């Protein structure tokens, strides 16, 4: 039997969380080694397992992989979560990249001074509300399907859910203010047009997407307490990372 993938990172979200999500969504069990000391980190570097001296590190299928996006692409392809052809793949890439950008802003904010952190996080919520989430809502609205790409569950759906939940931790109301509802309320003639095209509104908004993807058995399991999903970055996490990486 193939060995389980082994993840090596800090005990926290950072750049590894999207990888945990994707493995979990694909129903793949994985092991984790947590970096807690500078010595551990230096040993990893000396061992030559870190191509550019950095984590995340994932060992699987006989490979020693670093670089988050390389790992995510490999997993998506391996577990058939990357669309059926090149044109679907580029859409998955576009959507995944967009959500990763958003989530990285949140991850990095944890390391800023309190004032800057607050400012950065407020900016993230603003970008989510005005740019990213409306873009995804439009995609779902335009094709009326259950998933972002090709009417099939993909990496893009996993990451969008991850991003929605992360932004909701910053502002619980972030999904309640979406344009479709506004159209229905403020411009009834356009609402009629929308309704004629798709009577089932609950199918086509982000709120419904969130519910739907969260109910997928593998994802549901990952969202339960006791799973390998990590908590938002706290001061202990920031301290550990700073100490290990000598930031």
């Amino acid at each position, binding site marked *: 039997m193939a060995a389980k993938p082994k993840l090596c990172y800090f005990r926290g979200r950072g750049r590894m969380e999207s990888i945990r999500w994707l493995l979990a969504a694909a129903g793949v069990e994985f092991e984790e080694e947590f970096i807690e000391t500078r010595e551990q980190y230096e040993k990893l570097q000396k061992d030559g397992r870190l*191509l550019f001296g950095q984590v995340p590190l994932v060992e699987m*299928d006989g490979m020693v992989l670093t670089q988050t996006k*390389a790992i995510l692409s490999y997993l998506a392809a391996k577990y058939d979560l990357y669309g059926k052809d090149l044109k679907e*793949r580029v859409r998955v*890439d*576009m959507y995944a*990249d*967009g959500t990763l950008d958003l989530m990285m802003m949140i991850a990095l904010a944890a390391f800023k001074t309190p004032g800057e952190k607050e400012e950065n996080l407020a900016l993230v919520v603003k970008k989510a509300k005005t*740019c990213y989430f409306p873009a995804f809502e439009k995609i779902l609205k335009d094709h009326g399907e259950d998933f972002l790409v090709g009417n099939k569950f993909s990496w893009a759906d996993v990451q969008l859910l991850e991003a929605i939940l992360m932004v909701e931790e910053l502002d619980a109301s972030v999904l309640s203010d979406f344009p479709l509802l506004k159209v229905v309320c403020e411009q009834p003639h356009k609402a009629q047009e929308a309704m004629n095209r798709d009577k089932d509104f609950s199918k086509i908004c982000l709120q419904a997407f969130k519910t739907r993807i969260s109910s997928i058995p593998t994802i549901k399991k990952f969202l339960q307490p006791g799973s390998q999903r990590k908590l938002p970055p706290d001061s202990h996490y920031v301290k550990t990372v700073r100490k290990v990486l000598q930031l």
Partner: protein
Amino acid sequence: MAAKPMLHYFNGRGRMEPIRWLLAAAGVEFEETFIDTPEDFEKLKNDGSLMFQQVPMVEIDGMKLVQSRAILNYIAAKHNLYGKDTKERALIDMYIEGVADLNEMILLLPVSPPAEKDAKITLIKDRTTNRYLPAFEKVLKSHGEDYLVGNRLSRADIHLVELLYLVEELDPSLLTNFPLLKALKARISNLPTVKKFLQPGGARKPPVDEKSVEKSRKIFKF
């Protein structure tokens, strides 16, 4: 006949340059629409052409693609520059993400606060000679082949060589202790498609200068 890809960006390197390099290396002719004014940018946004209200954007094969990584992945796969299987692809991705990280530091240098510039340059030089170039030199040394992955030209070679040119522009002495990388740079530069790109009048954009930074600031409001 298929329309040529149309690139939308300002008239400078930025995040579009790796895309220009890759298309050129693949022998694909492309056209460019330059965003010269804030109004040009507003128009693109209002058209609904930019999924996340950002450029680069490339019109290709009936699609309007954004996110440079997604665009590059598409071009590489389409033109057979992405390895022969998922394992080669994973290696290529690992290498090019490292290239992208260093490229990002160099890319952002012109827009960093003047007080921080010297420290940033020192950091870039340190990362170049102690982290990134040694890693790639080691890869080439380990298999002794002409290309980074699978004994065949791939996007990894193109992106790395683009980076080597940037490093050289910053400080030519940075390449001194990396003979295999210098050889790769020469080899890739001699490929007919790349050679054409590098010639004066080719689509390659010149280094960033103060004027173009100011212009971008106005257009993109940062």
